[in-house]
Structures are given as structure tokens and as C-alpha cells.
């Protein structure tokens, strides 16, 4: 040990020298070595950080991957759902369109423009037109015949009047008349007519009478001997035509109902009733009505007795609802009696 220590003390100067040399070398290389160390360290830290970052990136990517997959699948399922929904709706729409088509066709063909109804209507219309045409023609024919008949009758009548007037020209046994010329095979039409017809009675001048035969109220008709007969047929002035007066005077008796009933009317009626009963009544049992139906029926009193003792406006003053404001300012309507003679039905 003392030997080692002695050796060490001999090397102390060497050591000090070496210490300084080495420090100097170290000091000279310090910067380089420092920089190299820094570089190595930085590179290593860089590697570390990069490894950490890549680790982070990987994780982040993983998370994002998973997340995006999730959202995309959700979106996709949503899209599938909507596509399915749209497909369904399209299908339903198509079916609805089919139904609507059928319905609209049916409705339009039935209500708006019914071809067969229109056809039937036009056929009916042609038939109705034919009816009307036939009826109108018949009616026109009837009218024409009526008019012709009237004109013929008028002519006949005129010829008869003429024959009446010229009745004095009738041929006698001794002397042939004007219309019965002996050179003709047959007498003329006028002659034949005159034979059928009675002569026109012309009033001759009134004969002289001892007592005047004038009844007191016929002064208009029978002419006074002192005055000439009137020139005009119609009497001048406010007199009624003579024919009317005559008609009124000689009007047939229209006895009242009381007069026309015989005095035994009541007895006769009784007899008649007895005979009728004898003839018609076969069964003596009276037919009893169904009594069940009337059992529960309540008696409804008269309106007149169930109210106060005065006249009700309803039923006397007014009967239905009236619109007084429409009638304002207008005069009361005059109603007409229907006269069936004025309308002749041609069917």
C-alpha cells in the first residue's frame, strides 16, 4: 500500500500535467462535442417525438376511422330508408293514380258527360218532336176542317135566307117559276131550296083596332101609329137592346132549392136509405176497428179552446208567414176566376 501511494505521489505531477492537458483538449473539443451531443440528443428527441406523434396520429386515425364509419353507416342507412320510403310512395302514388283514373273515368262518364244518357236523351227528343209534329198537324187539320165547315155552313145559311126571301118565285102547278125552267132537265138548286124552306114572314102593316092592343111596357118595340117605325135597329140612347130585354122577360124559371125539393123529401130519402141498406148490407155485424192502436193516443185539444177567449191572429189575420216588406208600396193583387170555357183542350 505504501508502495502504491509512493507511485501515485510520483505521478502527481504527471497527473497535474495530464489534468491540464486533458482539460485543454476537453475544452477544445467541448464545443464540438457539445454540439454533437446536442445533435444526437435532438435527433433522439426528434425520434421520440416522432414516435409519439405517429402513435398519436395512428390513434387519431383509428378514432376518426371508426367515427367516420359510424356516421357514414348512419347516413347510409338513412339514405336507404329514404330510398325505400320514396319507392313505397311512388308505388302508392301509382296505385292511387290508377284508382283515381278509374274513379274519375266513372264519375265523368256518369255525371259530367254520360254518352248513353245523351244518346237516350236525343232519341227521346226525336220521338217527342215527332209526337209534337203529329199533334200539331192533327190540330191544324182539325182547325182547317172546322173553318171550312163554318164557311160552308155560312154559305148554306145565306143561301137559305136568300131562298126564304125569294120564296114567292116558287113554281106552282100552273106556272113554272123562274128557277124551274121547263127546258131544263131538273129544277135549279134554288128551286129545291125554296121548296124546303118556309117563306120569310114580313110583318104587314098593323091593322086598325078598336081597342089599342099595346101592353104598357112594350112601347119600345111596337110602333105607335102616330110615329113611324124607327129607322135604326138599335134604339138610340141608353136603352138595352130589345133582345136582351125579351130574354130577361121570358127567362125560364129557376126555382130555388127549397122550392124544387118535394114536401116528402125527407120521407123519400128515408125510404131510399132503407132500400139501399136492404140492397147492400150483407153482414150485420159491424166491423170493429182495431182498438189497440187508439188506446194510448192522447187527446189534443182544440187550439181555439185551449187559449184565451179572444180571436187568434193566426188563422184569421194571417195564415202563413208573410213578407210584408216585399208588398210595400204595391197594390193588393186582384185574383181572377178561372173560366174553363176559354181554354179548349185539343187532345
Amino acid at each position: 500500500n505504501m508502495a502504491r501511494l509512493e507511485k501515485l505521489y510520483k505521478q502527481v505531477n504527471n497527473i497535474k500535467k495530464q489534468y491540464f492537458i486533458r482539460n485543454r483538449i476537453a475544452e477544445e473539443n467541448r464545443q464540438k462535442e457539445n454540439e454533437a451531443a446536442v445533435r444526437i440528443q435532438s435527433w433522439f428527441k426528434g425520434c421520440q417525438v416522432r414516435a409519439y406523434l405517429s402513435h398519436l396520429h395512428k390513434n387519431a386515425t383509428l378514432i376518426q376511422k371508426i367515427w367516420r364509419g359510424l356516421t357514414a353507416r348512419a347516413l347510409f342507412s338513412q339514405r336507404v330508408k329514404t330510398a325505400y320510403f320514396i319507392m313505397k310512395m311512388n308505388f302508392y302514388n301509382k296505385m292511387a293514380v290508377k284508382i283515381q283514373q278509374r274513379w274519375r273515368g266513372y264519375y265523368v262518364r256518369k255525371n259530367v258527360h254520360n254518352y248513353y244518357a245523351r244518346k237516350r236523351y236525343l232519341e227521346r227528343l226525336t220521338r217527342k218532336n215527332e209526337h209534337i209534329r203529329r199533334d200539331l198537324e192533327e190540330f191544324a187539320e182539325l182547325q182547317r176542317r172546322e173553318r171550312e165547315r163554318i164557311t160552308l155552313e155560312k154559305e148554306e145559311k145565306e143561301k137559305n135566307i136568300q131562298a126564304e126571301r125569294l120564296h114567292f118565285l116558287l113554281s106552282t102547278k100552273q106556272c113554272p117559276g123562274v128557277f124551274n125552267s121547263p127546258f131544263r132537265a131538273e129544277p135549279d138548286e134554288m128551286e129545291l131550296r125554296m121548296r124546303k124552306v118556309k117563306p120569310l114572314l114580313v110583318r104587314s102593316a098593323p091593322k086598325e083596332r078598336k081597342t089599342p092592343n099595346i101592353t104598357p111596357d112594350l112601347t119600345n118595340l111596337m110602333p105607335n101609329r102616330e110615329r113611324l117605325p124607327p129607322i135604326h135597329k138599335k134604339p138610340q140612347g141608353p136603352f138595352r137592346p130589345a133582345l136582351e130585354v125579351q130574354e130577361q122577360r121570358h127567362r125560364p124559371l129557376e126555382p130555388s132549392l127549397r122550392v124544387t125539393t118535394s114536401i116528402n123529401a125527407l120521407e123519400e130519402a128515408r125510404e131510399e136509405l132503407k132500400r139501399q141498406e136492404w140492397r147492400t148490407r150483407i153482414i150485420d155485424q159491424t166491423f170493429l176497428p182495431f182498438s189497440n192502436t187508439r188506446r194510448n193516443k192522447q187527446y189534443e185539444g182544440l187550439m181555439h179552446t185551449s187559449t184565451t177567449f179572444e180571436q187568434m191572429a193566426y188563422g184569421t189575420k194571417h195564415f202563413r208567414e208573410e213578407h210584408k216588406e216585399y208588398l210595400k208600396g204595391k197594390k193588393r193583387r186582384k185574383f181572377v176566376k178561372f173560366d174553363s170555357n176559354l181554354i179548349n183542350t185539343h187532345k
Partner: protein
Amino acid sequence: MSQRQILQVFEQYQKARTQFVQTVADLAARPQNTETLQNAGVMSLLRPLLLDAVPTIQQTAALALGRLANYNDDLAEAVVKGDILPQLVYSLAEHNRFYKKAAAFVLRAVAKHSPELAQAVVDCGSLDALVISLEEFDPGVKEAAAWAIGYIARHNAQLSQAVVDAGVVPLLVLCIQEPEIALKRVAASALSDIAKHSPELAQTVVDTGAIAHLAQMILNPDAKLKRQVFSALSQIAKHSVDIAEMVVEAEIFPAALVCLKDPDEYVRKNVATLIREITKHTPELSQIIVNVGGVAAVIDYLGDSKGNVRLPGIMMLGYVATHSENLAMAVIVSGVPQLAICLEEEQEDHIKAATAWAFGQIGRHTPEHAKAVAVANVFPKLLNLYLDTESSEDLQVKAKKALKSILQKCTYLPALEPLLYEAPSNILKHVICQFSKVLPHDSKARRLFVTSGGLKKVQEIKAEPGSAIQEYINAINSCYPEEIVRYYSPGYSETLLERIDNYQPV
């Protein structure tokens, strides 16, 4: 002088007056004497006789005055200026019925000439007096008063309103119910004159219940009465839908159709006018008339009558066809050939114009309708009417419109072909348009078109490129193979011959 001689002088004077007045009245009955009478100063002589003591002279003087005023409106003015009217009006209230008749006759004769004279008659207070006369018992007085009122109300709406304000209408309705035919006639004609001016007046007439009474008189045998009744109903019904409905509700159909066969042609004309006024308003009213068989009756009526009388019937058919295509089909089914005969036969322009319009309304709805019109061989006639230089402008316009509207729906080619040759360019456009619509779909029609020479004619038409006609012509040409089109184009033979010139034989 004894009393008898004095009285004799007076008697002679009276006889002289009577004779004068009676002769003047007889002379005034003839129109050729009025000039002479007027120059002789008859007015101034008759005027004092109106105030004469003897009633016969008064009446005859009034009658003479009335007859004079009847013929000439100068005389009527002289009556007004001579202040005779107030005297007459006063005496209308007082005297006996013959005088009332004569006085009403004078009022009527004065009022009939012009609205101013009628106004003068109203101004002197005659309406109240006439109303009082309408309440009289004697039918002759009522008739004269109603006649005077009718003539007053005829001129314009103002006078009618004055007449209505005097409270005349209910009295006229009562007059209609009287048994005398002449009175009914005159009352119906007065109601017709009152109601014709405006809807309010027609409503007043309707409110008094006139329609029911007029409807009852439809089947009366007297022809003149029927004329007036139908005229009154048509004047009432023409103003509004409600009133027309009320007229129809009075159940005049089908009784009125019977009167379309009446021998009197004015009765028939008035019935046709009534039907026309009713169908003019709404499709429902036209439908009622069609269902009752009115169209057939009117068509028969057109066949029976000639001339101006046909006009209301033709217009009625036009109005019915206008409303809807069902009704137009109903008209077609009932008989379009008769209408075509009308178009041929009639000479007057306004009747032809009405017929052309009616055809236009019938044919314009659908191709079926246009075909029915075309089959009746109407197109050539319409075209002639349109092209004829002698037709009036109205007729030409209507014929053109009718042609256009029918052609736009016509697909019946045989009737369209003659039109190709004769029509002017504006009509031709429509014809070609119809061909271009039909030909692409129908091969038989195409063949017929070629064989009948229609394609040739179409090629010959010169049209500006780009115009509508050119488009239609192109559409028609595209229906055929090119060779055929080239074959029928004009100048094809020349081009063929030119090819001979250029050909080199081998």
C-alpha cells in the same frame, strides 16, 4: 113673330149644325178629303161645336175631330195648339158614354203621331180622366180609354212611366178579364206597349198578375187577340231572366206551340218572338223549351212561312244552339235541312245574315256538329254570301265568322274539298289547317284526297314561307311520299321534259 116661328128658327139652326157635323164626320172618314177640309178651316169651325148644347152634335164633332187628327199629324198639332184638349179632358169626366168614347178617340188620334204630342196629351191631365173612364161600366168607353193609354205609352219609357204612375195597370188587367173580345185586344196591346220599354215597367206589369190572365187567353179563337197576347207576353219576357221564368211557369207551353199552326201569320210570328225572347236568357230556359218539343214546332213553322216572318224562328234556333252543345245537338236532331232551305230561299240580307249566324252557332261546338252542318251542304252557300259583292257588310261579316267557326271544328273532308277551289286565302287557311289535322291519321282519306285532285290544288297554292299556310301545306306534304308530292307539284311535266333534253342515250 109667334113663338112657334121663333122656335122654328132655332130648330133650323140645330138641324143645320147637325147636318154639318155629320157630313164633316163622314168626309173625314176618307183620307183624301182631309187636305181640303184643313184648308177650309175645319178646326176652327169644329171647336165651338164641341161646346154645343145638343149632345149629339158634341159627340159627332168630337168624332170628326178624332178622325181628322188620326190621319195627319199637322192636324193633331193644330188640335193641341187650339187648346181643345183641356176641354176634352174635362168633358171626359162629365158626359155620357158616347161623348167619352169620342173624346178618348180624339186623345188617341192626337197621341199616336209623336212623343211630343203624346206628352202634350199627358200634360193636360188626360191620364186621370182616362183612368176614371177605365173604371166605367160600358165596354166601349173602356176600350177607347185603353186604346188611348196604349198609344200614349207606346212612344218612350218616360211616357210609359207616367202612365203607370197614374195607376193604369191594375185596371188594364181587369179589362183583360172582361168578356168583350175587342176590349181584351186593346187592353193586351196597351199592356204590351207599357211593358216593352224597360225591366222596371215589365216588373210592374207582372206584379199586377197580368201573366196569368194573358196565359189564359192563349187558346182563344180570335186571331187578333192572340196576336196582342203573344206580343204582350214577349215584351214582358224579354227583359230579365226572372220574368221570363215567371212567364214559363204560367204553363203556356205546350199550348203556345199549337198557335204556331195558326192560319194568321202574325200570330205565328208573335209566338216565335215569344219563344225567342224566352230562350235568349239562360240555358235552363232553352232546355225547358227544347224538352217540350219547341224546336220541332219552330222548324215546322219555318217551313210554313215565307219572308220576314221567319226571322224570329231563325234567331230562336241560333240562341238555343249558342247556350250549350247539348242544345245545339238537339237543334241538329230536330232538323237542320230546313234551316238550309231558309238560307237558300230568302232574299233579304238581314234574314240571310241571321241564318248564317245561326249556322255558325250550331256548328261551332264539336266536330259532330260541324259535320251535321257540313252535310246539309251549307258551306258553298256561306262562301257565296261572303264573296258576293252585293251582300251587305253585316251579312258578309256574319258569313265569314260562321264559316270560320264551323271550319275550325270540321273534320268532314268531302264537304271541305269544294272549298279548296273557291275560297279566298283567309278561309283557305282554315280549310288547309283542318286537312293537315285529319290527313296524317286516315289513310283512306289520304287516298281520296289525292284522287280527287285536292293534293294538286294544295300544291298550286302560293304561300309565303314561314306563314301558317305554308306550315299546314308542309304538314300535308309530309303525309305523302316525295314522289307523289313532286308528281303533283306544278310544272312537273316541264321538269320531266327538261330531263329528256339533258339525257344522253347510251
